[in-house]
Structures are given as structure tokens and as C-alpha cells.
């Protein structure tokens, strides 16, 4: 979607009105745009209706918006990740480079961002999950066949009240309010169906209805739509997880509770910032918030349309929507200003969100369907976590469980059936791959596992799909880091040792680097796949943030991390989180492996359960109201725990006895060789 000129001006980086215009030709599209001299290249590109991905939100941090300036004069504010030769060759960051004269600029193809992932295996996962609930029997929307006595002069009750009466008599359902759409269709449906109709009734659990709107004591039942006769209506619902990076949706048959399709796509907001902070900053002006809202709705509609067409359904068949997202994503989706989430004392517009008609949000579903956003408990603990906590099952027993949702933000919940406490810490893009020199998402060609020979220091890698390597994904990073440490290539503070005899260690742009795959053996054949000192620092920080968050959470309630009985890992981390390696680098606590379970996308599963089971929905509400939120920004214990975790595996090695043991064993093993 091209930015309008107005938006470009709002950017604040465009030069004053006095600046002369320059012409920028963009290749390979061959489009020429005119912008005032001193404009950002990125603005020129947007103005031309073209796009360059801005993973860090145009903050000049990721170095991914690189373009090549073939002709003309530019000024580079930042040259992050560009080497001197590359600058020489004209490479520049679109978000950080100002055009001073007429120019010719080549846009470079980046990693495909709109790649769709079929969610089939995720759907399987849901079927396997055992959440004890009567899902499939108490969905939010159900259909009722009602035979209504026709009116006559003696009984001239209007159509709706007539239906109401019969619902009460036949099903004991009272206090139904109608939607306008249903009212509009009712007379015709009754008469076409010869006084038999199928009523689509939306039912909210009284507790939830109360929790959502304390003044609404009668609104538990709503006539959403009505069809003539007793044709079984098509009742579908959508459960959608709005992740900062990825949006995933399930299409669910509400009558059976079955997931009939699942699909995911990258959140189109990525183009405006890879992390929530970047997006909050980007969304300072209303126009940009509107843009962000449109982007995510666009992504959601894309998924819905695709699934509907695959299943030969229509928009009107989707009668309920449940959305789980972090606090910022939920705000942006609902068009709420997230600005205060980021600023002390870190409060959003709301924790519990109203039911909003789909038509208001322009979602491609039945216009009367209500969109239910899962409740948030804090600035950085949102509906994805309250929904996920339900799925983790942590609230079911006395055992102390730690539920971790690992992504750009590490969110976590500690507790049991009696109490819950949560926090979030910024892990940065370390495990998303995007931040690193050779990082990439967990798609085909991504290195997901690495082994390094302790004698020759030669690596062996495996990739997703067994393809020729293109880069390293988050799980690959964990694996690689673990190996580098265990083989002594990096010391315990993560610095690459210059003394190791291998040509794979060399001086790079950012200090020393280790070459994982030589350029010739990669998919592009152009660049070595490497990990450098800076990448390692980022990884260290990411793992330290997560471990520190967990440690502080435990400490805040007087527990030690080893008191945790179960560690439940959720998030779109991938299917492969190697517990052994994750413990080696100190990302996960050193507990027996059988205490860990990987649950997949818990946010989506939680949304799904809220859709098909009103008890689950109420349970999520309950989780949200009893979950305590610990704000770590205000907590110096976190900084201390963080510094302490900023070591391999940890400054306090006694917390990682198994790693100590294998290090010892390796040492002896190597010296024996």
C-alpha cells in the first residue's frame, strides 16, 4: 500500500518547502518520482507506490532496507551493517539516506515476507491438546430450529416477540435481543420458511457478559441472524492470533468444534516496524495509526478470504470472531492509541475490551458477528498470554508452572490454580533471526541445527526442509551458540576467541566472526553465513532477558527457579526448540528435561477455545482478573538478574550443574584426544 504524500510529510524527515525537487528513478520497476531534495529514499520509494521492507520500522537498526544507489548524490545518516566496499558500490539504507540530487536507485529483493504457511499441522496440534472443557458443546454461536405459530387477529404479537416467546417455551432461552440484520430478515424468513426458522443465537456466558459489561444483565442472548426453514445453517467462527510478526487464523465449524482450515501470514505492519515499540513510535500520528490498523486488518482479511474460498464459504458464514494479541497489537487492531503503553507508568487504554461488531472493524465476516478480543493484564502482557495461560493448563493444579511465550518479547506467567503472576521482557530480535548478520525466519533453507567438531572446529548443519542453507533461524541460533560455547570458540562472556586455529574465525565488519557456511555452499552463493560478536551480544541479551524475567518472577513470590515443577513453552518459536541447547546457553533453567513441554501457538489455541467453549472463555476472563502483572521496567532486580544472565550459561554456574558437567566432560574429552 503506497503512502500518501501527506504521510511522507508527517515523517518529519522531509526537507523544508524551499528545497528544490529532484527526480529519483527506481529500478528494476523503472518508475520515476519527484521529491524535494533531502527527502528520505524510503519516502521516494513509497511515493512511487513501491515498497522496501522496514523490519526495524525505519529506525536504522536492522540494515535490511538496503538499496543500491546507481547514480546521484545521497547522504547516509547511518550505514549499519554496510561495509566500506559496499558503501563504495553505492549500497545505502533506504530509511536512513537522504537524496540530494536526481538519482537512480536499485531496489533489492529481500527475503519474501508474505510467504504463507499452511497451518495444517497446527490444526492437528489443537485436536491433540487436551483442555478439559465442554468445547464443541457450548460455542458462542449456535443454531436453533424454531416453529413459530403464525399470527392472527387474536394474537397479533409482532414477529420478533413471537419468536422470543417460542424460544422461551421451546428452549428455555429468555431475554433475547435482536440484531438489526436479523430483524430485517425475520419477517421474510418466517414466511418463506412457512413459520419454521433457524435462529442463529449468540450466547455469552453470564459471567463474561457481566465482566465485559456490568450494566448488561439481559444481553446474554442475541439473535444474530435468522434463516427460513430448518436448513442446517453454516455456522463458522474465526480464531485469530495477531502476533507482532505473524498473524494466524483458524476457521472453525462451530457446530462440531472442528478446525476446518488454518492459515498464517506475516503481519503486514512489519513494514512499519518489527517490534511493538517501533510500531508504537510509528503510530504517533492518527493517520499512521489508521494505516497500521488497515495493514493488520488487511492481513486478517487476506487470511479469511483465502480460507473462505478454499472451503467455498461466504463471509456471512463466519458468525463469531475471537482475537488474541499482545496489548499493543490489540490496541492497534481496535484503533486505540497505544502511546501510553510505552511510557511510564505503562498503561494502555483498557485491559478488557468491548465486543465490537465486525462491520465496525471492516473484517470480512458476517457484519453482525461480534469480535471478542482476549483481555490484557498489563502493558506487555496481553490477550495472547491470558489465552495462552488457559491452554498451558497451568491453572489446573497445585504444581508450580512457568509458562513462557518466547518471541520478540518474552512474556511469562508463573503460578498454579491459586495464583498467577506475569511479566514481560524485551528479548529483542535475537531469536527471530531477523536481527543477526545471517539471520532469517524459520522457513525453508533456514539452518535449525548446528554441530561443531571440537577438534577441527568444522560445523555440520541441518536446515528446514533439507534445503541448501540460506541463513540461520532462531532455533539454529540457539544450537549454534550452544556449540560455540561447548567447543570453546567463544568464551563464557560470548567473545570469539582469536586463538582458535581455524580459518572459520576471522576479522569482520563487527569484530571477529565465525563462518558457519562458506558462500559457495549457500543458496545464493553470494555471502558467507556467519555469526559475529555483535550477533552474539544480541543473542546473549535475548536469552538473558528471558531467563532474568523468569528468575525475577520467581523471586518476586519468594520462589527459586528450581522450584518450578513444569515449564510450558509457547509461541511461534517453531517446532524445534532443543531443550538441551537452550539449557546450555542458559535460556531455559537447568531442570530435568521431562519438566519441559512445548505447546506451540498457545495464543491461537486459546482464542480457538474461547470461540468454541464459553466456559473456556469465562476461564480466560478469570485468569485475566487474577493474574498479577509485574512491570519490570520499574524493577532494578531485573537489571541485576539480566546482567547475571548475560554470561554462558550464567554468572552463577551453580544454577546450571548439568552444563558444568558437560563442560568438564568435554574438557577432559578434548584433552584426551
Amino acid at each position, binding site marked *: 500500500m503506497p503512502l500518501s504524500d501527506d504521510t511522507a510529510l508527517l515523517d518529519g524527515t522531509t526537507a523544508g518547502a524551499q528545497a528544490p525537487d529532484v527526480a529519483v528513478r527506481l529500478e528494476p520497476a523503472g518508475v520515476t518520482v519527484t521529491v524535494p531534495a533531502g527527502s528520505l529514499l524510503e519516502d521516494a520509494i513509497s511515493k512511487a507506490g513501491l515498497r522496501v521492507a522496514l523490519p526495524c520500522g525505519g529506525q536504522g537498526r536492522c540494515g535490511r532496507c538496503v538499496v543500491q544507489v546507481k547514480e546521484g548524490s545521497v547522504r547516509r545518516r547511518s550505514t549499519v551493517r554496510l561495509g566500506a566496499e559496499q558503501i563504495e558500490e553505492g549500497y545505502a539504507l533506504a530509511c536512513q539516506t537522504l537524496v540530494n540530487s536526481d538519482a537512480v536507485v536499485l531496489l533489492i529483493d529481500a527475503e519474501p515476507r508474505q510467504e504463507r504457511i499452511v497451518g495444517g499441522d497446527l490444526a492437528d496440534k489443537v485436536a491433540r491438546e487436551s483442555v478439559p472443557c465442554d468445547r464443541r458443546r457450548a460455542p458462542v454461536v449456535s443454531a436453533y430450529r424454531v416453529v413459530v405459530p403464525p399470527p392472527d387477529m387474536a394474537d397479533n404479537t409482532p414477529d420478533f416477540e413471537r419468536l422470543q416467546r417460542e424460544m422461551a417455551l421451546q428452549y428455555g432461552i429468555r431475554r433475547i435481543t435482536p440484531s438489526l440484520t436479523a430483524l430485517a430478515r425475520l419477517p421474510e424468513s418466517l414466511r418463506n420458511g412457512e413459520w419454521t426458522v433457524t435462529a442463529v443465537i449468540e450466547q455469552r456466558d453470564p459471567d463474561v457478559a457481566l465482566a465485559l459489561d456490568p450494566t448488561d444483565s439481559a444481553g446474554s442472548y442475541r439473535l444474530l441472524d435468522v434463516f427460513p426453514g430448518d436448513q442446517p445453517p453454516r455456522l463458522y467462527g474465526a480464531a485469530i492470533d495477531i502476533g507482532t510478526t505473524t498473524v494466524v487464523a483458524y476457521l472453525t465449524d462451530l457446530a462440531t468444534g472442528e478446525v476446518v482450515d488454518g492459515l498464517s501470514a506475516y503481519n503486514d505492519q512489519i513494514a512499519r516496524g518489527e517490534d511493538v515499540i517501533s510500531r508504537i513510535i510509528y503510530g504517533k500520528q492518527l493517520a499512521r495509526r489508521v494505516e497500521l490498523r488497515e495493514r493488520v486488518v488487511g492481513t486478517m482479511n487476506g487470511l479469511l478470504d483465502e480460507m473462505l474460498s478454499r472451503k467455498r464459504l461466504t463471509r456471512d458464514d463466519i458468525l463469531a470472531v475471537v482475537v488474541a494479541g499482545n496489548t499493543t497489537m490489540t490496541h492497534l487492531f481496535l484503533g486505540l492509541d497505544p502511546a501510553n503503553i510505552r511510557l511510564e507508568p505503562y498503561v494502555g487504554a483498557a485491559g478488557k475490551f468491548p465486543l465490537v461488531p465486525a462491520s465496525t472493524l471492516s473484517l470480512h465476516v458476517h457484519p453482525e458477528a461480534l469480535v471478542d478480543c482476549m483481555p490484557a493484564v498489563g502493558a506487555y502482557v496481553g490477550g495472547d498470554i491470558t489465552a495462552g495461560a488457559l491452554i498451558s493448563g497451568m491453572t489446573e493444579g497445585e504444581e508450580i508452572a512457568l509458562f513462557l511465550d518466547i518471541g520478540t518479547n518474552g512474556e511469562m506467567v508463573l503460578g498454579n490454580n491459586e495464583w498467577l503472576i506475569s511479566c514481560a521482557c524485551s528479548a529483542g530480535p535475537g531469536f527471530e533471526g531477523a536481527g543477526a548478520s545471517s539471520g532469517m525466519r524459520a522457513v525453508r533453507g533456514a539452518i535449525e541445527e548446528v554441530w561443531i567438531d571440537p577438534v577441527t572446529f568444522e560445523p555440520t548443519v541441518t536446515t528446514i526442509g533439507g534445503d541448501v542453507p540460506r541463513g540461520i533461524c532462531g532455533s539454529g541460533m540457539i544450537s549454534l551458540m550452544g556449540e560455540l560455547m561447548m567447543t570453546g570458540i567463544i568464551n*563464557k*562472556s560470548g567473545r570469539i576467541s582469536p*586463538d582458535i586455529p581455524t580459518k572459520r574465525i576471522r576479522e569482520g565488519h563487527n569484530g571477529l566472526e565465525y563462518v558457519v557456511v562458506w558462500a559457495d555452499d549457500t543458496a545464493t552463493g553470494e555471502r558467507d553465513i556467519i555469526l559475529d560478536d555483535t550477533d552474539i551480544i544480541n543473542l546473549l541479551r535475548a536469552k538473558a532477558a528471558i531467563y532474568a524475567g523468569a528468575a525475577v518472577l520467581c523471586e518476586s513470590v519468594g520462589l527459586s527457579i528450581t522450584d518450578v515443577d513444569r515449564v510450558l513453552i509457547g509461541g511461534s518459536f517453531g517446532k524445534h526448540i532443543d531443550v538441551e541447547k537452550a539449557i546450555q546457553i542458559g535460556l531455559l533453567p537447568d531442570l530435568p528435561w521431562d519438566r519441559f513441554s512445548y505447546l506451540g501457538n498457545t495464543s491461537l489455541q486459546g482464542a480457538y477455545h474461547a470461540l468454541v467453549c464459553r466456559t473456556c472463555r469465562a476461564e480466560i476472563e478469570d485468569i485475566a482478573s487474577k493474574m498479577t502483572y509485574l512491570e519490570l521496567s520499574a524493577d532494578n532486580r531485573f537489571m*541485576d538478574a539480566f*546482567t547475571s544472565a*548475560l*554470561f554462558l550459561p550464567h554468572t*552463577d*554456574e*551453580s544454577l546450571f550443574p548439568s552444563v558444568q558437567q558437560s563442560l568438564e566432560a568435554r574438557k577432559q574429552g578434548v584433552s584426551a584426544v
Partner: protein
Amino acid sequence: MAVPEVKEKYAGRIQEVTLGAGSRGKTVAIGGESTLPFLHFEGTVANRPAIAIEVSDREPDDWSPLLKEAWGDVMGDPAKWAAKAEELGADVIALSLDSAHPERGNTGADDARKTVRKVLEATTLPLIVYGPGQKDKDNEVLVAAAEEAKGERIAIGNAEEKNYRTIVAAALANDQVVIAKSPMDVNLAKQLNVLIGDMGIPKDRIIMDPTTGALGYGVEYSYSVMERVRLAALGGDATLQQPMVLTVGYEAWRTKEARTNDEVPQEWGDWAQRAILWEANTAITLVNTGANLLVLRHPQSVALVRKAIDRLMAGA
């Protein structure tokens, strides 16, 4: 009336480190205690905290006039300076090879050797040798110093997280002690000890410098960092059991209170008294939280701190 037992039974003990050997007329052992500072009722304080006097190999141009007044013209000559420091009650000479700094003379390994030799000859006390604090030059002159003073068991520093390998290797090869300096943080201090320990240097040859701020400028952070270090060490954490050295003189004499009397409030009182107390009170506050070796600058604060330590040890 019976009072509950409050003696702690600590699992750990501070590592004892000895400075000086060979031609040194005196050796100085620090550390070795099994309790918090001077709690003689529950453990032994094996060695009194020692005092090093800072001596530079080039006349410092940024030192307070009060210090210049106190030391007079020996300041131009590290050997004479060291001899006078010994006379004035130092236990250790802390020789700073500041002239090796690229901006302050850029002297090299040969000069360093000569200076170290001269100072060794001028005093019978053990030495600490500090580099100029710049990576390449530190490596150059500290290696030279370690070699030159082979057999004398000097301490060389500072080894820091970003530059420790060469310095530790030099200490290891020449049987010297290394000073591990980390920013004021208990975790960073520990991490550096682990990294240095991983190089195989014995524990009786590491002194840690957890960095201090002066009175009024962050001394409370050091107070707490050091106390945490000490409690962990006594609690049995072997990676934090190194004795601690603090460059109190450097920090205290950087403060406005000590450096100058220009445009200061009248309530600050007499300049000389204030400046000396600034150093002495910083020192004593750190001694109270576990300092084993203090690097000081002014002869009078040296005398005050020494007497205070005498008194604190008197309960042993």
C-alpha cells in the same frame, strides 16, 4: 537474659594473596578472613587491610595542588617518590606507568622495564604496576613489567573483560599476581574472575577490583556491591573469594570537594581537612565492606587510615 546466637557460620573464606618475593624486603599478605570486616567475634581477620601509595612514572598534571604540596619534587621521579612513600607508611607501592599512554608520552616496553627496575631498587616494598588504561599499551608495558619483575611477585593490572588474555598470560608466565577490574557490579566482577580463572591462573594470584565511586559520588554503590561480593564469597562462592583492591585515591581526588577550593560553599569547611577526609572517609567506608587493599594518594590520609585500621584490628 539469653540473647539468640547471631554468629554466622560461613562456608567460605577469602582467598589469601601474597605480594612481594625475591628481593622485596617485605611481603604483604591480604585476604584470608573468614568473616565480614573486623567481626572478630565470629571469625578470623587473618590480615589487616593494606595500604598502597600511588606513584606515577610521570609528573601528574591533573593532581590537586594539595597533593603536589604534600609530595613536593619527588613527583618527577618514580624511584624517589616510591622511597618517600615507603618512608611515609605505605605497605605497597602502586606504580602507574601512565607515560605509556599514547597521549601522555607514548613510552614503550623498554621505558617500562627501566622504570620498574628503578622503583624495585628504590624500595623494599612489593609493587603493583598499572598500565595506562589503553588496551595495546597496557599489553605492551604490563608484559614488560611482568618480565622485568620476575621473581618479585608483583601485581599487574588492570585486566578487564575486554582485555585480559595477554595480561593474565603475562602474570601466569612470570609468576605474578593479576588485578581483575570490572565495572561496579557484582555479576561483572564474578564473570571476570571466571574468565580469568578459565585461563588457568591459580586463585592465590588474582586480586579483584570491583571499582569504587568516591564519597558523594557513588560510594554507596560500591558499599553494596562489595558487601554482596563478600557475603557470596563467605557463603561459599569460590569465584568471588578474591581479595579486593580499591583505587580510592584516584576516585576521591577527582571529586570537586578534594580537588579545589574555588567557588565552593563556605559550609564545606577547610579545604585541606575536607580533601583529606574525603579520601580517608571513602577508604574507611570501603574497609567497612571488605576492602583488602587501598590505593591512596595523600600522606595524611594514609596515616589516618593506617591508624584506623590499627584500632579496628585491636579487637582481634
